[in-house]
């Protein structure tokens, strides 16, 4: 009896294009999978209008629109952070853990560095290993200074580098819906993630 519902679920997921053949994507991070096809034009408020090109920790270059089709939980950070970023990354991991299994399959996590000089793809790879960020759902990106400034401006993140190479920055977690629109934002560290998780799940119950 058990295998049949599972098969049906798997088929539905495969047809929806949300979880492509599990065997073929295991171990391939979101940056390096083919972009999902989409027929709808982007709305005026989609962040995927940005034309900037980014480099992932896997060394792949891509525009943000590559992530279209799946929900992205986004935070700006830098790997040499002494204050808030470890908590910020931990908050993202708490969100991942709190998602119901079926929603978790459709949600990716995107960490974008505000420190392009030091956060090379190699450094981002090391950070991924240090924090045990799963390959399947986590992307780490670095980009040109101007492009980081622009993305930060769009998300409402303020940041400034101080003389010791630390960045003062807003701690802000942004949820982007499948078409790149801001669905929800969480300000501050160690906040309750319940509302954010609820909104992510709601996003996915819509067609």
């Amino acid at each position, binding site marked *: 009896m058990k295998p049949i519902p599972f098969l049906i679920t798997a088929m539905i997921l495969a047809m929806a294009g949300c979880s492509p053949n599990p065997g073929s994507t295991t171990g391939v991070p979101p940056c390096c999978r083919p972009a999902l096809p989409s027929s709808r034009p982007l709305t005026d408020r989609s962040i995927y209008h940005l034309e900037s090109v980014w480099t992932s920790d896997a060394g792949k270059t891509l525009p943000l629109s590559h992530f279209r089709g799946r929900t992205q939980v986004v935070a700006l950070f830098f790997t040499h952070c002494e204050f808030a970023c470890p908590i910020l990354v931990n908050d993202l991991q708490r969100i991942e853990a709190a998602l119901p299994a079926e929603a978790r399959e459709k949600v990716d996590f995107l960490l974008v560095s505000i420190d392009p000089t030091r956060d090379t793809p190699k450094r981002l790879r090391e950070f991924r290993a240090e924090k045990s960020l799963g390959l399947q759902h986590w992307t780490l990106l670095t980009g040109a200074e101007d492009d980081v400034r622009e993305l*930060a*401006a769009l998300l409402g993140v303020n940041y400034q580098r*101080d003389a*010791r190479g630390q*960045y003062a920055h807003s*701690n802000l977690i942004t949820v982007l819906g499948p078409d790149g629109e801001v669905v929800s934002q969480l300000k501050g560290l160690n906040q309750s993630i319940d509302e954010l998780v609820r909104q992510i799940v709601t996003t996915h119950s819509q067609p």
Partner: protein
Amino acid sequence: MNSSLLRLVLVLWIGIHVVPQGSAAGTNTSRTIPGGIHRPVLRGPDDPREIAVPAFGLDALPVTNGDFLEFVRQQPRWRRSQVKRLFADENYLRHWQGDLDIGSTNAQVLGQPVTHVSWFAAKAYAAWRGGRLPTTTEWEYAASAGLRTAMLTNDPAYRRQIVTWYSTPSPASLPPVGLTPANFHGIHDLHGLVWEWTSDFNSALVTGDSRGDTGIDRQLFCGAGAMDGAARDDFPTYLRYGFRSSLKAAYTVHNLGFRVAYNLAPYTP
């Protein structure tokens, strides 16, 4: 009575200088701001007191409606009806009558600084002109000059005048660009006309509210973000930082414009 006199002067000035040619572009020239040391008024506790600023180019005047009209003529995606909401809020260019129609008082509006433009639009314009927006440090450095000295602090009379400007509300109809005296570097209107976008306007971690700043939102901002003033009497600088930190990149404001900065070609002997 003073204001009506000023208006008369403005009208005369406009009549003389802003001959409606369709665009005021070309009257604006870029000046070289020599490199030097900037001493920021607002800085973090661990920040240096002095920042070396390499030489850069800066337009003597803010961008006018006339200049911006030429830009949207050539770049349709920045026209009022076509701009994406992501890049400019619903008040973008609201003082214009239409996409390419800046209104009945054309001649007057052409020479006024363009306002109601978002950071994205300003950035796109600057790139179209072959330049960029000045950084906050560059802007503040250029604005820290007096009229006849590179240091505003050595020009107390001008400094007092600036404080007066900042305590006077913007007039309903903005004066044209270029009426305020050129500073030591030959730059007009850094004080006394409109606020201006900078490329990293979103670097200031002050809330703009003096009450808020005493206990900055520690939850939102990282611990390194606390700012304290190096010169507590520099009221206009606080206002500018506060204003910038209250902005979002898609915002358009009735008295917020911009000017273009340029990288200088590297020195080759």
